[in-house]
């Protein structure tokens, strides 16, 4: 990339971001037109968590869009404030839901991040780590094994204790490490399982890397709930990470390779739908069609693939599910993961299910659509800001007096559970599939 990284020359230079994005090619629409769509009315400011944190226009959607325009014009450098603000953004896309003018903010910020990556030269630790840990199962396995050892040896307790005493950097981060499941669901489950009642069709599930490492139970519950409702479930063992972690961090090269691999693997299952219980993964897999739009060999297959992807709650709500005979016994509320409500506009379906299985114990959560601060790896990179958002979420949960929080994304589950644990709150945080399966199981 020849684009300058220095702010000395403020002369206009058209098309910088545009060509950068094209070089990456994820969002072909990322262009001047997309930026011009913002009429700077400011209606999005009220829903933006980072604007609420700093009160500064540059940390707002409207401000960030203006900075993107300025980078395109060549009036500000890529490095420095621009890069900081693009990464400080949670990519929660609450602004996209709020924007009446239809500005596709999510696409803009992801293109901007890719642009930043393309512009950088040299060794990039973050990307290397992401590539190592999220690409193959083996990478994540190695990381998980280390983490499990750390948690089992009791070292964790010492670190957590120390972090209370010296609340600094890496020690504080250690608190966020979730308890890992003992085993990956994908290691326990066979490649195919039959439904428990008369078959309605076949689905394949993505076990997800974070989901499977931290919440293998949720995967087992997902399979059970699907079987309980007449679905034959394929669990392809050769599947790989959906690629979202790389994609959101601006590394689309890796994301594309992962997408191609998954397309091949999932096609092999012959399933009608691909059910995904992690909001971040389902959102990203629905976008494979865009990710591979320029790839002549895979564009059509990606389109079919994305069409088959269904988020778990969306799937069971739309195809119909058997109502459990009993209701959840504690007070329950529902937290809306950004990648469900804002990215996929899935809000009523999971809420209706939760209301249904909670009965009178359902409590509505104030600011249910506000990001909990987890946002991928955000809570590690921006620890303090994420902690403030988490506090806000926990306070709202406290106020509605819920003992159980249901959410549809592993990041949110881990974040809220870690917060509850640190605040010594009596709170259980579970996936919708787990809540539902517990009721099914109790019938037996």
């Amino acid at each position, binding site marked *: 990339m020849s684009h300058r990284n220095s702010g000395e020359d403020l002369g206009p230079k058209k098309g910088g971001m545009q060509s950068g994005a094209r070089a990456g090619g994820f969002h072909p629409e990322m262009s001047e037109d997309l930026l011009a769509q913002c*009429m700077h*009315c400011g*209606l999005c400011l009220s829903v933006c968590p980072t604007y609420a944190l700093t009160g500064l226009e540059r940390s707002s959607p409207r401000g960030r869009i203006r900075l993107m325009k300025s980078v395109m014009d060549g*009036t500000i450098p890529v490095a420095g*404030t621009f890069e900081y603000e693009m990464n400080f953004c949670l990519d929660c896309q609450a602004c996209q839901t709020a924007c009446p003018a239809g500005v596709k903010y999510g696409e803009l910020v992801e293109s901007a991040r890719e642009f930043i990556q393309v512009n950088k030269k040299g060794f990039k630790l973050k990307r290397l780590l992401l590539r190592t840990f999220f690409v193959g199962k083996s990478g994540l396995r190695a990381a998980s094994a280390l983490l499990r050892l750390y948690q089992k040896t009791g070292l964790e307790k010492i670190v957590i204790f120390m972090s209370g005493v010296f609340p600094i950097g890496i020690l504080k981060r250690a608190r966020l490490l979730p308890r890992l499941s003992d085993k990956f669901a994908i290691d326990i489950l066979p490649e195919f399982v039959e439904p428990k009642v008369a078959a309605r069709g076949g689905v394949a599930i993505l076990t997800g890397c974070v989901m499977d490492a931290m919440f293998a139970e949720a995967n087992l519950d997902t399979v059970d709930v699907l079987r309980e409702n007449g679905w034959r479930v394929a669990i392809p063992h050769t599947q790989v990470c959906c690629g979202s972690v790389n994609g959101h961090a601006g590394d689309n090269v890796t994301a594309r390779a992962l997408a191609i691999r998954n397309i091949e693997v999932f096609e092999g299952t012959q399933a009608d739908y691909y059910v995904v219980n992690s909001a971040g993964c389902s959102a990203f897999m629905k976008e494979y069609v865009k990710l591979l739009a320029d790839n002549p060999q895979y564009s059509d297959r990606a389109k079919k693939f994305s069409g088959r992807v269904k988020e778990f709650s969306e799937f069971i709500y739309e195809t119909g599910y058997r109502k459990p005979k009993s209701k959840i016994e504690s007070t329950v509320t529902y937290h809306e993961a950004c990648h469900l409500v804002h990215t996929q506009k899935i809000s009523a379906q999971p809420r209706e299910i939760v209301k249904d299985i909670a009965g009178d114990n359902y409590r509505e959560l104030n600011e249910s659509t506000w990001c909990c601060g987890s946002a991928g790896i955000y809570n590690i990179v921006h620890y303090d800001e994420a902690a403030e958002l988490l506090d806000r979420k926990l306070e709202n949960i406290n106020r509605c007096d819920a003992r159980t929080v249901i959410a549809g994304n592993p990041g949110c589950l881990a974040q809220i559970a870690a917060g509850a644990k640190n605040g010594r709150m009596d709170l259980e945080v579970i996936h919708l599939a787990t809540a539902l399966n517990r009721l099914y199981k109790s019938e037996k």
Partner: protein
Amino acid sequence: MISDGVKKKLRDLFGKSCFLDSTEDRIAYSYDGTALLSSLPDAIVIPSSVEQISRLMRLANGEKFAVIPRGSGSGLSGGSIPSENSVVLLMSRWDKVLELDRNNLTAWVEPGAITGKFQTLVESHGLFYPPDPGSSQICTLGGNVAENAGGLRGLKYGVTKNYVLGFEVVLPTGEVMHIGGKNMKDVAGYNLKDVLIGSEGTLGIFTKILLKLIPLPQASRTLLGFYESISGAADTVSAITAARIMPAMLEFLDKPTICAVEDFAHLGLDKNTGALLLIEVDGPRSAVEEEAAAIESICRRSGAKSVRLAKDEAEGTKLKAARKSAFSALARIRPTTILEDATVPRSELAAMVDFISETARRHGIEMGTFGHAGDGNLHPTGLTDERDHAGIAHVESAFDEIFRKAVDLGGTITGEHGVGMAKKKFMESLYDTPFIQLMRKTKEMLDPNCVLNPGKIISVSPRCEGALPKSREQIERLTAKMENPSEAYF
């Protein structure tokens, strides 16, 4: 540019974290909600006390730089857009409600409090603050007072000034002044309160505001009337007035606006409708039901194709939220959305709407119109693309004609958004010379060095616009700007 010496003084006054002058921050405060206008400030300051603001004003008078007060920057006439040689004074962090007096039904607020949040708070106490601009979820009460903002409930409840009992204000020369109090009646002295309300940040900086509250109406009911054309809608408005019913809301949307709102909010509006009225009545429950029924039959008699009654308040709220998004939703159609707020006496509504669509046709431009039908406040909205200079010129000449027509019909150039920079040039055609002279003298008297938000509403004297240009490049830039005012930025 403000000199480094002055910047140092500002940094010392506000502290390092509350003085911003990076290019990125300056860009982020170079615009507000107004189309086509933007210009870079030299710095942004975030005050933490009235004393600091007062010292800032004294420094500005001494060093001759401009101060631009800013709330959330949702203004639509360029009121908070920086001028040359200026510092933005950011008030949005002053967002507390200081006191809610339930015996006197008043509230002391800081100017940065968000209008919508304040409304939710008082409503949770059974109280009501009626002024609700379409931007209520983001605009500040200080910005509302500075613009004398109106809103959807203006017809029955009036506008911001009807709810301002008093304030604390820092004058352009730095003195701190107090006006008003909790008395519902107060005639001591000139009514200077109303001079400062709506002064668009040119006569003083509000630092504390005392607002009047009223009891929350018991119930409300929302209806939609769908019409083939504007004339049926206008007939309905007259018939409702003649029936001596005073709706809380009487809003109008034309066809392009209906389509844009439907695309955003998915309410099931019929996109083939020529005109739509959104009507809300509120008050005691029994009266509300009666009035809603009466309005329904008036709509049908005046030629409505169909009438839809919101089944409950929740659906009514949804419909109103959709109306509030009308302006931004129109922006879906084209990248640049130029909104105006020509206002005419109620009786001229149909004539004005017809003139607007005829003018748009004649100039070959896309235009959507919506607005507060009940009070004749219309928002003709030109849809274009700022990169298309010929298109922009067409929109501008269409608006010229629309404003002149509004004035001919006995109307005005702005019903609620203010004059700011955007409508300055129409002031002379609206008012007679003594009026303009008195406004000028008022500004000169309160702000002798013209340092507070210069160049807004009226031009006072050239020295207002900042330091005299010295170098050749500065002079060339200025002349280029005069020839092409829309390219003020970079």
